[in-house]
């Protein structure tokens, strides 16, 4: 297959169009401006709708409306912009509307910096909006995976009738890498009989709302959502194991820091330390069970979590490892990228304590 060089943001936009996304609503923010820019040209060409909304809030509520009518819809932004979208995400989860929200993370909190970061882990995995809901969170580590996961995100959203978050760090949005456009087999998906797309001979009206003023009815609804949560946890968990077959020191990282961690692990192996990388691909559902299993192996001595934040996924690593082995942390924040040598150093320090 022909390989081409694509910039992450453009590749995500093209992948969405190829996955049948027909509505994109967004508002510009660095480092993901190439997504709306690409959509503004190519979405109308493929018969879809592009609107640059007046704000992030407007954009996410346009997605809400489009999704309610049964159309594949997406919005994208970067950290502070995604904070503004949380209300819409909560409403879509409540109304069981499938949609894809892309967050190309930059330094925070607040307006922060425009350089790459991973400080929105808690927001994405714990549900940044109000109420009892969960969203599948997909975290690509290279541009090919960003393409594949974007397309998968639409299927997952439709299958569970739930918003899906593509959580990319700024490097994924801005870097260029070779990719191939694969022929993909879409999932078999339920018909959107619930869509508010006009009555068209149906004997009932479809009504989309998140207002359930009667508490017992609201709880019953939440319990229905919880069933889907359990199903997503069962079916959608993904991770990658790199050089873990004989590893004694396990680096845990997601997104592009996992590539820094991999280079560090290769360097550590040359120094005689058997290092490997555990890379969660879904951040929710988190691959707790497998990581717990790895932590239970006799040969595995210690863990080092590496993030472009000051320790957020660390909580999940601790939940998974459950005290079986030490869990150390190295992170940079605010738009700074962990350097390979820094990760190596932190790993060697963790290693000294257990060997």
């Amino acid at each position, binding site marked *: 297959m022909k390989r*081409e*060089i*694509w910039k992450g943001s453009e590749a995500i936009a093209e992948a969405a169009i190829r996955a049948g996304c027909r509505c994109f609503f967004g508002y510009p923010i660095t480092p993901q401006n190439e997504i709306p820019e690409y959509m503004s040209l190519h979405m109308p060409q493929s018969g879809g709708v592009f609107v640059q909304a007046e704000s992030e809030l407007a954009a996410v509520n346009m997605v809400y409306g489009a999704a309610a009518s049964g159309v594949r819809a997406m919005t994208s932004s970067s950290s502070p912009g995604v904070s503004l979208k949380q209300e819409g995400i909560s409403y879509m989860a409540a109304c069981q509307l499938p949609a894809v929200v892309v967050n190309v993370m930059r330094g925070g909190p607040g307006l922060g910096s425009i350089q790459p970061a991973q400080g929105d882990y808690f927001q994405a995995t714990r549900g940044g909006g109000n109420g009892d809901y969960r969203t599948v969170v997909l975290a690509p580590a290279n541009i090919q995976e960003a393409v594949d996961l974007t397309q998968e995100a639409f299927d997952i959203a439709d299958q569970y009738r739930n918003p899906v978050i593509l959580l990319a760090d700024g*490097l994924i949005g*801005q*870097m260029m890498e070779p990719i191939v456009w694969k022929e993909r087999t879409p999932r078999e998906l339920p018909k959107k009989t619930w869509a508010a797309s006009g009555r068209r001979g149906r004997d009932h009206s479809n009504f989309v709302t998140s207002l359930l003023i009667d508490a017992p009815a609201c709880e019953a609804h939440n319990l229905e959502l919880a069933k889907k949560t359990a199903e997503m946890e069962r079916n959608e968990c993904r991770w990658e194991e790199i050089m873990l077959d004989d590893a004694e020191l396990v680096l845990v990282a997601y997104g592009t820091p996992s590539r820094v961690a*991999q*280079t560090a692990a290769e360097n550590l192996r040359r120094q005689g330390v058997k290092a490997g990388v555990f890379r969660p691909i879904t951040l929710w559902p988190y691959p707790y069970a497998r990581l717990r299993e790895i932590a239970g192996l006799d040969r595995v001595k210690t863990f080092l979590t590496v993030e472009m934040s000051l320790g957020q996924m660390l909580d999940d690593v601790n939940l998974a490892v459950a005290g079986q082995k030490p869990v150390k942390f190295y992170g940079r924040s605010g738009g700074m990228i962990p350097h*390979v040598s820094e990760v190596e150093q932190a790993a060697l320090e963790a290693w000294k304590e257990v060997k």
Partner: protein
Amino acid sequence: MTAAECCSHRVTIVTGHYGTGKTEFAVNLALALAAGGERVMLADLDIVNPYFRSRERRELLEEAGVRLVATPRALADADVPALPAELHTVLEDRSVRGVLDVGGDPSGARVLARFRPRLLKEDHQLLYVLNANRHEVRTAERAIACLRGIEAMTGLACTGLVNNTHLCGETDAEEIRAGAELGGAVSRETGIPLLCHVAEARFVPELTDLKEPVFAIAIRMKKPWE
């Protein structure tokens, strides 16, 4: 091909669509010119891309004697299209060899338009970098449309094509050869000469069959894990 042969004019303006490898080419060109004993200034004029800019190689460039002209550190991430005042030195000091690393596509090249009157007074060349693996410019038709857009936006005429076809870490001689075909087609169509091909030094021995000279580079714009 030496950098001096590549830069037969005092000021070399490097343009091309995003992802064609302008910055890699410009950085290598500046380093090679400096190694040849020239007084070189490299200007980072990309006002669009926030990451992967020539200014990220400031240390390397300055150690090699290249003076980097870039937005001051305090403004570097301000996300505003600010240009460094020092740029005027490149344009006015005729003892300096200038390499201008310009943002991709016509929007990115807009920054040059205000300097057109000054550039026209200087001995300059405008190069257009090609990469056959970039979807936006992979056919001669699209590559020429982008080239004409840059010319219209800047009011400057392109004087040379550079084939920098690559696949990041997965480049091989075959890819560069495929790019040579695209370069040839664009050249035939426009009458603009194909100045050179760009290849990592390790591929140069495999490319002796190419008609045009090869400018050898080392990869300087690495990703954090490379």
